[in-house]
């Protein structure tokens, strides 16, 4: 699968588009939409939602990035 695609537009096995990248869009949209998480309740071990949700979203994003990596690497 090492053939190079001189056209560049679509069809490239590596470096081209993959539908898996849509996971990144979800990652971005949530992270950049503060009304979603700008609240105090529910708290978790005393930490307001605003803080623990964004930290949790880091973990979700990390997992989704690993999924995209594994799905597009081969």
């Amino acid at each position, binding site marked *: 699968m090492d053939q190079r695609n001189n056209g*560049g537009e679509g069809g490239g096995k590596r470096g081209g588009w993959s539908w898996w990248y849509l996971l990144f869009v979800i990652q971005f949209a949530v992270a950049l939409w503060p009304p979603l998480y*700008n609240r105090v309740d529910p708290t978790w071990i005393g930490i307001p939602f605003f803080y623990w949700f964004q930290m949790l979203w880091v973990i979700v994003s990390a997992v989704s*990035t690993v999924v995209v990596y594994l799905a597009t690497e081969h």
Partner: protein
Amino acid sequence: MEHVNWVALGIFVLLFGLISWLGFAAARWRRGDLDQLHEWGLGGRRFGTFVTWFLIGGDIYTAYTFIAVPALAFGAGAVAFFAVPYTIIIYPLLFLVFRRLWHVCHRHGYITAGDFVRGRFGNRWLALAITVTGIVATMPYIALQLVGIQVVVGALGISGTGLMGDMPLIVAFLVLAAFTYSSGLRAPASIAVVKDILIYTTALAAVVVIPIELGGFAKIFAAVPAQKLILAAPGPHSSGAYSNYATLALGSALALFLYPHSLTAILSASSGHAIRRNAAMLPGYTLMLGLLALLGFFVIAAGVDKLPEYAAGFKQFGNNFAVPALLLHSFPSWFVGIAFAAIGVGALVPAAITSIAAANLYTRNIHREFINQNPTDKQEAQMAKWVSLVVKAGALVFIVFVPTQYAIQLQLLGGIWIIQTLPAVMLGAYTRWFNDWALLIGWAAGTAAGTGLAVAMQLKGTYPLIIGGFTIPGYIAVWTVLLNLVVAVLLTPLLNALGPRRAPRDATVAADYMA
């Protein structure tokens, strides 16, 4: 501040000595001919996933981050947490865009963004604009790292007036300059590993031990005033704090990998796989940044800003003294020594990478392009080594003679400037559609507008954009890079029609951007 904390100082000096030795010894690590620029300035592009992780981490999590992010949380509250969505965004960017850049730079032997733009668009003036922006934007970044060292040295109890007061800083920088000169990028790469072990230890200890001392997170957040706890809800006809928060995160993320030192760390990776793997692994750092931001609230809850023994520190360093005071208050002296060494070394790593990146830029894209077009490999590497010294001396002079506040404001301007290279560098990684002169004019428009708006807003960084009676406050970098893009898009067909009819110059082909 009256008496020196000898135990902490002893451990601090010991760790600093160890790090310096490591910096010099690094010259022999993965040995290469340091008389070649790509060996000195990119570590021979030999760093695998592991080392690249620490190098990129060394760029993102610096002494200044360690001091300033909690200081912002302490002073301004929730908005400081924009650092978290910011880091959520950077990794997909790394994954998609910068892997392409790695491939094309690897294939053509490019070592700077200027090299890439010169090859892609065949326009030396556009490359010069990218280069000068990179150098100018990174200078205050080095100076800021020195602020980090200044604060911890002050917190150790060492004070003095005039040149004596700056002595520790000068010594630290002489050592830094010497090992950067002799070892090149291998020095910060090897130190970065130790730095991260120290920083992780400190951060984990702080978020576990201090909340226990303070009686749990519920008590800590109860001490935080309501207006600092979450973002203020926007009023009518305005997106208020929400758009501020989101554009700060987005703009900072877009700017990050355009900085020369980030690109240097990326290009030193041994493969595109290493870049992608890093994008998947680096969020481990992000969690730590979030935890660090929480330290600002620990400061509020512990009330260290009201204790008389730290009053002098807060008076001298302002909110930047919050973290050192908290560490002094919460930990035994020996651990304070480790924590402060972590911050100090956290300054050396990015300062070294940055000065190397600036040296690479000057040598390749100014000296070689405009002064001596056919240097030998040895002349080129020697030039870069000298420039790295000049850059650091400049930063040192800046921090000794210019008020700290200016360094912070210049850093803010640096972000606004560097993001203007986005159309040529990041979009250039995908398309050659843009006309090179249109990109240059777009860059000039964005840079001028960004600087003007920032000055008009008294260097606050955000500007309330008003569209049809609706106010959208946001990061100036985002507004002005949009202007930059609009100008470049509108002028491209126009200039193409006016210009000579020929295929656009491009030294790269589509296949160069892929594995």
